[in-house]
């Protein structure tokens, strides 16, 4: 595994271009574009203010930098460094900004979700979409980039509008039978829209592209409902994770539940492999232990090497007792993701925060459980292989594939041998879409020196470049 040197970073903004050739990272008001292979700086753009959001266009030719505080969006072209574009939302303010899939339009959501402004880079035309709903996932483009589904709220009722992305014409507009719509997502084939209600009610609605209600699914009532939803890449399954700690898989023919994946705290089936992360304690010679321990050693202690051990049959996982009287209780399936080849589903139960369950979708059975030493922050599948990257907020990244799993220490201390610097952990890792196996681990330092700001390390998994 190859690691780059550590790059500076602000606001944890670091993005691979969709074609996997470039890496954009933001350092305060500067945007740095690097080549992925050589990691040499290709372009350096200076924005008007500290960048709060950056996003590549789908064709990797443009990159937008949003400065929410000033209501500004700046767009840069990679091919023409002198080209620039500045969009000012003025007094309406800016709450969110994103590209349309064609890479020629920018959708800006104003503050208070008053409207969405669609700016075109091709023509002077500006389109407005009113009444967008402020919710968890209110905007969804189809994968082919043709349609946009938008959750709206009008007259205290939820609606969904389907727009044609080519000319932003309204194609369909229908109200949904939801109390308080929480999210929408297109199926990867772009023909079915999944709509789910707020967590207070378990309700998943499936709409056809033409606005027909295909099916409504409700697993239970009178309890906290849907927490996370994911389509399988083949559009064949819809996985719904809920607050009762179960994932329900709906099929695409009858839209009924095929199976239910419970997440018990004890794994009893001996066929299921349970990988347990274990600390590999470096053997410290007693004579060498100095008192007081040097700071460097103290820093290293937090990032001791770890390895996976295969635990034998009845394994009980660490569970968390949820605090009942607080909002957003730590229960239920907080995250779930299908592998790009449809074979696996990775889930995390928030009440068992240290574990990642990996389910075999072919057999519809539990396949592997990974138990980490610390709570799993996020996980992401490799876009080309059935390989899962997990991070727990430590200085390590964990990789799982059907062949096994490894824990990788992201180097940091080596370069930063400044006393007092401490690599607190990777907050997030994102993987390039077309460039397999390239990871960026974003890390925050809790260093005392202000110059030791957040940093990122790009690294490769060996052999991934040979992959087709």
């Amino acid at each position, binding site marked *: 595994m190859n690691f780059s040197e550590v790059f500076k970073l602000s606001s944890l903004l670091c993005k691979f271009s969709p074609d996997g050739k470039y890496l954009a990272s933001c350092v305060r008001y500067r945007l740095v574009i690097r080549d992925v292979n050589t990691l040499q700086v290709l372009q350096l753009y200076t924005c008007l203010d500290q960048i709060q959001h950056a996003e590549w266009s789908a*064709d990797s030719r443009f990159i937008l930098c949003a400065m929410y505080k000033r209501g500004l969006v700046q767009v840069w*072209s990679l091919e023409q460094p*002198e*080209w*620039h*574009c*500045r*969009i*000012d*939302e*003025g*007094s*309406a303010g800016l709450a969110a900004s994103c590209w349309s899939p*064609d*890479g*020629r339009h920018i959708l800006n959501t*104003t503050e*208070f979700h*008053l*409207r969405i402004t669609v*700016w*075109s*880079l*091709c*023509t*002077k*035309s*500006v389109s407005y979409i*009113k009444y967008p709903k402020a919710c968890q996932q209110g905007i969804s483009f189809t994968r082919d980039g*043709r*349609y946009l589904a938008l959750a709206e*709220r009008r*007259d*205290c009722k939820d609606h969904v509008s389907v727009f*044609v992305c080519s*000319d932003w*014409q309204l*194609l*369909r507009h229908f109200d949904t039978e939801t109390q308080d719509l929480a999210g929408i997502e297109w199926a990867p*084939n*772009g*023909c079915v829209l999944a709509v789910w209600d707020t967590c207070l009610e378990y309700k998943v609605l499936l709409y*056809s*592209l*033409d606005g027909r209600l295909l099916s409504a699914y409700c697993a239970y009532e009178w309890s906290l409902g849907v927490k996370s939803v994911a389509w399988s890449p083949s559009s064949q399954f819809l996985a719904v994770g809920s607050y009762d700690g179960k994932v329900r898989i709906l099929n695409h023919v009858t839209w009924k539940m095929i199976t239910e994946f419970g997440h018990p705290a004890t794994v009893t089936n001996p066929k299921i492999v349970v990988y347990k992360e274990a600390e590999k304690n470096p053997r410290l010679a007693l004579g060498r232990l100095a008192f007081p321990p040097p700071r460097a050693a103290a820093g290293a202690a937090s990032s001791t090497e770890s390895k996976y051990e295969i635990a034998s049959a009845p394994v009980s996982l660490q569970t968390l007792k949820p605090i009942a009287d607080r909002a957003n209780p730590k229960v239920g399936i907080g995250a779930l993701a299908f592998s790009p080849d449809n074979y696996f589903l990775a889930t995390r139960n928030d009440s068992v925060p240290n574990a990642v369950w990996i389910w075999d979708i072919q057999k519809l059975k539990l396949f592997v459980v990974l138990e980490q030493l610390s709570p799993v922050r996020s996980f992401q599948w490799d876009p080309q292989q059935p390989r899962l990257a997990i991070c727990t907020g430590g200085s390590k990244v964990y990789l799982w594939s059907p062949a096994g799993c490894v824990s990788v220490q992201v180097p940091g201390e080596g370069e930063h041998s400044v006393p007092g610097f401490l690599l607190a952990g990777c907050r997030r890792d994102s993987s390039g879409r077309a460039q397999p196996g390239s990871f960026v681990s974003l890390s925050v330092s809790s260093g005392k020196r202000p110059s030791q700001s957040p940093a990122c390390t790009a690294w490769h998994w060996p052999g991934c470049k040979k992959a087709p």
Partner: protein
Amino acid sequence: MGEWMTVTDPHLSSESKNICQYTSETKMSPSSLYSQQVLCSSIPLSKNVHSFFSAFCTEENIEQSISYLDQELTTFGFPSLYEESKGKDTKRELNIVAVLNCMNELLVLQRKNLLAQENVETQNLKLGSDMDHLQNCYAKLKEQLETCRREMIGLQERDRQLQCKNRNLHQLLKNEKDEVQKLQNIIASRATQYNHDMKRKEREYNKLKERLHQLVMNKKDKKIAMEVLNYVGRADGKRGSWRTGKTEARNEDEMYKILLNDYEYRQKQILMENAELKKVLQQMKKEMISLLSPQKQKPRERADDSTGTVISDAEEDAGELSRESLWDLSCETVREQLTNSIRKQWRILKSHVEKLDNQVSKVHLEGFNDEDVISRQDHEQETEKLELEIQQCKEMIKTQQQLLQQQLATACDDDTTSLLRDCYLLEEKERLKEEWSLFKEQKKNFEKERRSFTEAAIRLGLERKAFEEERASWLKQQFLNMTTFDHQNSENMKLFSAFSGTSDRDSLTVHSRPRQKKPHGVSNGSLVCASKLTKSLPASPSTSDFCQTRSCASEHSSISVLNITPEETKPNQVGGEVTSQKWSTAPGSQEGCYSGCSLTHTNSHVEKDDLP
């Protein structure tokens, strides 16, 4: 009587007195005070009797007392004490005989009474003890009753408490239910209120938003703008089109096209899946047919009516179906045909299996009658035998286990260990005996062999003598022939013989080793004999300790052979063939030894070849 008196304890006597008093009081008339007195006095000590009577009768009142006694006695039914008076006014005379009779009778009566009294007393005692026992029982039962009563009270109390609790709980439940109802109502009302509020708030919010929107949008905000250096071409390279009604229609069309495509794709997939399933079904059917077809012949031959025709039908169907491409047919017809044919075949298969079952059972029935098959009795006997064997084995295992456990348990127990040791000794003794017998047998065999060997040796000696004679004659002839033989040649001869001798020795030492290692056996014994023979042919080892010689011989053999060889080589100086021949004649000698000898032989030949 006196004895009894002394035996009775005062307490008892007083008691009996009481009883007597009681009886006299109830039964007797008050006039019978005297008898009572008598009765009373009869129990107290006998020494009082005399004084009592003396008090009753004095010198003065003999007459009165006699008359009184007479009176009394007559009233009790005794004969009068007086002689019967002949005359009226004549003084009646005391009849002594009558008195004595009376006395005797009285005494008898007294004895009887005493006996009765004794009986009564024992009975009384018995009854008393019975009474005591009963009283005890009564007390116990009373106690029990008391405890039971207490328990019952406790239980009742508990029951009452539980009931109370139950009532309370019921009340609580009711309360809770009410509460729940209330809360539900509250929740519902709150929910409606909340919804209402939410709606209100949302409306307000919407109003505000609207206003804000108006404010923000209406005011020609100069700031809302986009600065672009130059516009970029569309990603698809086309120019943007005007929005018209047509575009809308086109969009619709496109949407439906997409949907249609999706549905078509899905249909295709489903069709494919269907085809796959049909294929599987078809295959299954074919296999079924092939499975059933050999059966088909038989029923036809037997002119079995139903199955054969059905099968043929099914076959025809199958042929039809296989000829046509399945997915060309409309789903329903195919389905019908397929299901029908499958059903038919299934029926056939089922009947076939049933038939087979019947056959099997028939065969079973026939089999019992058949002689080839083991009859039931034999079978049972066999099983019984086997069971018995199993039982025995089990027992043996058990005993073994016990022994083992004992051995384990009594590792420290000296007595048992000694016993066990004895046991083992006995066992060992037996084993030794067996070994001894075996050994004896071996010995016998050995002796037989030795005898034969000696005979052979004698024969050999004779032969040898003849041979030596021959050799002598031959040598003589040679000598005569080679009178011109020079001195050098003879020296050469010597050299070779010395060489051959050493090599011989070496080979022998080498080959004698494996002999030592060999375990004791019969072959070894014969071998030893052979070695012995080489040493001294007629000499035989002492028969008594043959075994010792056997064990030692193997060790000695090499030495003995080594000892021999120099002796043997001396005469061999003349020619190596002799030794080799001699070795080869040794019966049962090892191959190694033999080869060693042959080696010397060849060597000698080589030497000879070197000779000019």
